[in-house]
């Protein structure tokens, strides 16, 4: 096959490299897949221009191997780095396609620009076309999928899937030069050509706009000057005058290779009023632009025109067979095929392979129509008014707990939400906030104080009391044992509250649990313990952490098997309850300090005893 440098009428060869304008990784991958099955030794994409991103790399496959394609913000820089690139495939939107195409045309190295966008204003298209003509460059488009040179170079998404490319024999060259307006029909045309000839040499879809950058005749005349192309196939459409340029070229003998051509839109006469078919240019103004008139003119000028599209393939075959018979075409043997490994995602989708998953999740699923919390669609959460307690019960305990339990969860969250600015969590959050830290950092700084000494009693009390109760210790035996070990009983004791000055929060929780829980054995046990401890000192009462922790353990034991309830406690669910509840307060303190514009906190010297020796 001729190299571009050997024949100026060639736009592409098997070493052609392009810039992709706009970050089109999928199209890039498709081009590289084509490159690989075509036996190219280098990828056809040299770089991607991503004007709204930053410099970097796109990782794509070249056959089995992964390669990096550089991404540049600026076309100019890409051109400096890749002086050998002479094609740009412009995926910019209809708003910016014209400007970026003009920029590309200004680069001396760029010879061809394919403009994919549909809806580029006509005046801009005409300016692009005029500039390209003045510079002797080629524009393919706008409003096109592009084109393909079989076995050499593929523009963007032309040709469809890699299976279709191989089935339509686009991975190796044949003898047919094809050009159409429609990109959508080009796959069909390539298939027709593959079934009736030795295959495509090159195919271009010029795009459906009224003023395409290059025309049907531009490409036919190019094909005329490429010796490897032995016959021409063209598909026109009603509207516009492009087909008459082909008629003229035939009449003047500038096209001498056999041309099989059909103009679509013969059905327009069936419509009573003016119809705009799919393409911007496919609109009739005057009988001369009708498909019938164009087909007749082409036939008269010597093109091979079928009676209907139905015979298009037959005419192509007859023409091809005639050229084989007279020795113009000598069919080449099929080259050895290089196959593309199946894409993992596709193979999975089609159920051809399986692989153990790296992650498991059993509590929620966001893949379907609706977000699922366990087996509850999110809408149900609202319709059934399940509240935060219901959501927590599903996501933490994998079951929807009864209303009394979800309400208790919410009570626990409300009670633990805050305990004033002086406790270590809130204090740390405040100090971090005042040091100018963001919300997450400030809240985390407070949260990190939660542990055995701060907030840990909820969890600790539940574990200690459950353990004693389950071992069958009497309250007295439990108190004695703890005393012997010298360990404080978690959940017992308060700084100011006492038997005579009870903590109202504890009273509310106790009352709720005793009234609603199916079993509150642990709480009852704890209250017996409290009697013993308060007899010693009247502030050794069951405190709020203890009440929540122990009652929560009771609730879990009421709603699930003992082992499972104990496991959740052991996994830290109760600690989680405190963390979750207190986060509300920590965020509150952060927002409060920000709102008050509090400056950096510096602890006063006089509050620190400096004892250096």
């Amino acid at each position, binding site marked *: 096959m001729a190299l571009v440098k050997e024949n100026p009428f060639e736009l592409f060869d098997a070493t052609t490299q392009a810039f992709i304008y706009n970050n089109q990784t999928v199209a890039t991958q498709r081009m590289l897949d084509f490159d690989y099955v075509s036996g190219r030794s280098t990828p056809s994409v040299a770089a991607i221009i991503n004007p709204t991103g930053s410099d970097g790399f796109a990782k794509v496959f070249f056959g089995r191997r992964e390669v990096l394609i550089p991404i540049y913000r600026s076309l100019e820089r890409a051109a400096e780095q890749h002086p050998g690139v002479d094609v740009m495939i412009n995926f910019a939107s209809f708003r910016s396609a014209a400007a970026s195409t003009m920029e590309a045309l200004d680069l001396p190295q760029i010879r061809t620009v394919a403009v994919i966008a549909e809806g580029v*204003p006509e005046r801009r298209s005409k300016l692009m076309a005029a500039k390209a003509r003045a510079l002797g460059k080629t524009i393919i488009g706008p409003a096109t999928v592009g084109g393909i040179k079989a076995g050499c170079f593929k523009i963007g998404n032309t040709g*469809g899937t890699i299976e279709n490319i191989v089935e339509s024999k686009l991975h190796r060259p044949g003898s047919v030069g094809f050009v159409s307006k429609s990109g959508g029909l080009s796959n069909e045309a390539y298939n027709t050509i593959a079934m009736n000839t030795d295959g495509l040499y090159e195919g271009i879809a010029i795009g459906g706009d009224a*003023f395409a950058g290059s025309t049907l005749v531009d490409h036919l005349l190019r094909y005329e000057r490429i010796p490897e192309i032995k016959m021409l196939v063209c598909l026109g459409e009603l509207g516009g005058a492009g087909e008459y340029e082909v008629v003229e070229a035939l009449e003047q003998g500038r096209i001498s290779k056999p041309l099989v051509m059909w103009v679509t839109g013969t059905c327009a006469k069936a419509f009573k009023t003016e119809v705009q078919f799919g393409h911007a240019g496919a609109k009739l103004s005057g009988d001369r632009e009708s498909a019938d008139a164009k087909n007749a003119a082409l036939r008269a000028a010597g093109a091979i025109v079928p009676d209907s599209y139905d015979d298009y393939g037959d005419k192509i075959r007859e023409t091809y067979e005639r050229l084989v018979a007279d020795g113009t075409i000598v069919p080449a043997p099929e080259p050895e095929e290089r196959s593309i490994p199946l894409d993992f995602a596709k193979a999975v989708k089609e159920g051809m392979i399986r692989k153990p998953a790296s992650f498991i999740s059993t509590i929620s699923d966001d893949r379907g129509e609706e977000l699922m919390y366990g087996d509850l669609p999110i809408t149900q959460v609202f319709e059934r008014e399940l509240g935060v307690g219901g959501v927590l019960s599903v996501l933490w305990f994998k079951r929807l707990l009864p209303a009394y339990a979800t309400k208790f969860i919410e009570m626990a969250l409300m009670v633990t939400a805050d305990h004033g600015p002086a406790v270590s969590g809130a204090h740390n959050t405040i100090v971090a906030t005042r040091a100018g830290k963001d919300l997450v950092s400030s809240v985390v700084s407070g949260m990190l104080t939660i542990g055995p000494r701060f907030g840990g009693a909820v969890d600790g009390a539940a574990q200690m009391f459950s353990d004693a109760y389950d071992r069958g210790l009497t309250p007295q035996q439990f108190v004695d044992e703890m005393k012997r070990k010298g360990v404080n009983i978690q959940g017992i004791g308060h700084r100011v509250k006492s038997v005579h000055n009870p903590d109202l929060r504890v009273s509310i929780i106790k009352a709720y649990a005793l009234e609603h829980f199916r079993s509150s054995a642990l709480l009852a046990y704890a209250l017996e313990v409290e009697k013993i401890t308060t007899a010693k000192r009247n502030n050794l009462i069951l405190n709020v952490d203890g009440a929540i922790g122990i009652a929560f353990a009771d609730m879990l034991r009421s709603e699930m098997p003992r082992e499972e309830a104990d496991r959740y406690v052991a996994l830290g669910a109760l600690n989680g309850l405190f963390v979750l509840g207190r986060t509300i307060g920590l965020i509150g303190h952060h927002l409060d300090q920000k709102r008050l514009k509090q400056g950096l906190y510096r602890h006063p010297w006089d509050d620190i005893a400096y004892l250096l020796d």
Partner: protein
Amino acid sequence: MAQKAIREADGMHILATRLYDYGDAMCELEDRFLSVSSGAELAALRGEHPWLAQVPLVVKPDQLIKRRGKNGLILTGATVDQAIAWIDDKTRGAVTIHGRFDDDGRPLDEGTTGHLRHFLVEPHMTHDPADECYLAIVSNRDGDEILYHHRGGVDVGDVDAEAARMQVPIGETPTRAQIARALLVDTPQGKRACTAGFIEALFKLYVDMNFAYLEINPLVVAGGKVTPLDLAAKLDSTADFESAAKWGDLEFPTPFGREPSPEEAYVEELDAKTGASLKLTVLNPEGRVWTMVAGGGASVIFADTITDLGFMDEMANYGEYSGDPSEEFTYLYAKTVLDLMTRTQHPDGKVLLIGGGIANFTDVAKTFKGIIRALREYRERLQAYGVRVYVRRGGPNYREGLRMMRQLGEELGVPIEVYGPETHMTKIVSIALKAG
């Protein structure tokens, strides 16, 4: 997309309000162009526009209709009451409009029938017919061409042959002197300067506001002033993002006589709701041959082939679905077609062509699911109306799609013949039509 015609009232309004932004246009044009849809609407505008009662009026339908004069659809020199009565009269029922007339003014075609819904009301300007000229700007590949003829009006004749022409290359702007040299050689000396000034400004407006076509006939040149009396224009609607602010609030009307049937209107509605494309035109509701074709290009070719094989009169619809519509939209679209085709019996039964080329990346099996759902739902009616179905499609996952269709035929007891890319795209047309 593309070049779209606008109403005369909108075009005139643009000229009246914008032309002087582009130079001394030597133009006398007050912004007195009212667009109304009924006599009552005009009556209601009397207070806001006192000139309606002060000057004689011109009234004409404003629905992209050609040869309004010959069709008897221009009222001139009317009072506002006469204008109201005339509009009421013209909107009472359907109107037939002809495109060709013989020398005695008798229509030469069967015409197009439809309803008049938009009228332009403007002051009537008396002028000497000798002052009428013709002016047009036409967009072409290399730039724009200005056509000017020093005689205009209803009987302008063959403008293509007689008008002076000036091709302006893309990106260039002609000077008054160039315009006068190229176009105004046959124009009396006294009228040249103002005409050249007008054309210069008009051309700049045309370019800057992304017009694609502009025809003014007649253009009256008298007393050093230029006045357009009748205008037809197209804008490049793809330039919306550049020019919409200058265009102002305008719509692109559909041509006269094309009023969508309820089913067509429904499909238009579906089309507007999805990013994909769904189109339906009913050509002959009694026709035997119905199509449901994927892709804009392929759908035209299927309609072509039906026409070329001599079944144009039996072609019931033109339609296409493309751009990967969801299963639901495909289902609703298919249902509309199936419903339409199972309303009247045909002695030879009916044919449904589910056609398409080789898709680029659309999952064929997926899009077939919506169609299959509709076919299942219409099983009994398909049987009752003797419908035979022919399928041809290629592209991603087409084997699965075709298998589903084959299986459906057996399941429904409706004949469904299924072909893939190994069969020429339109072969199912001849297979279907020659079978019955």
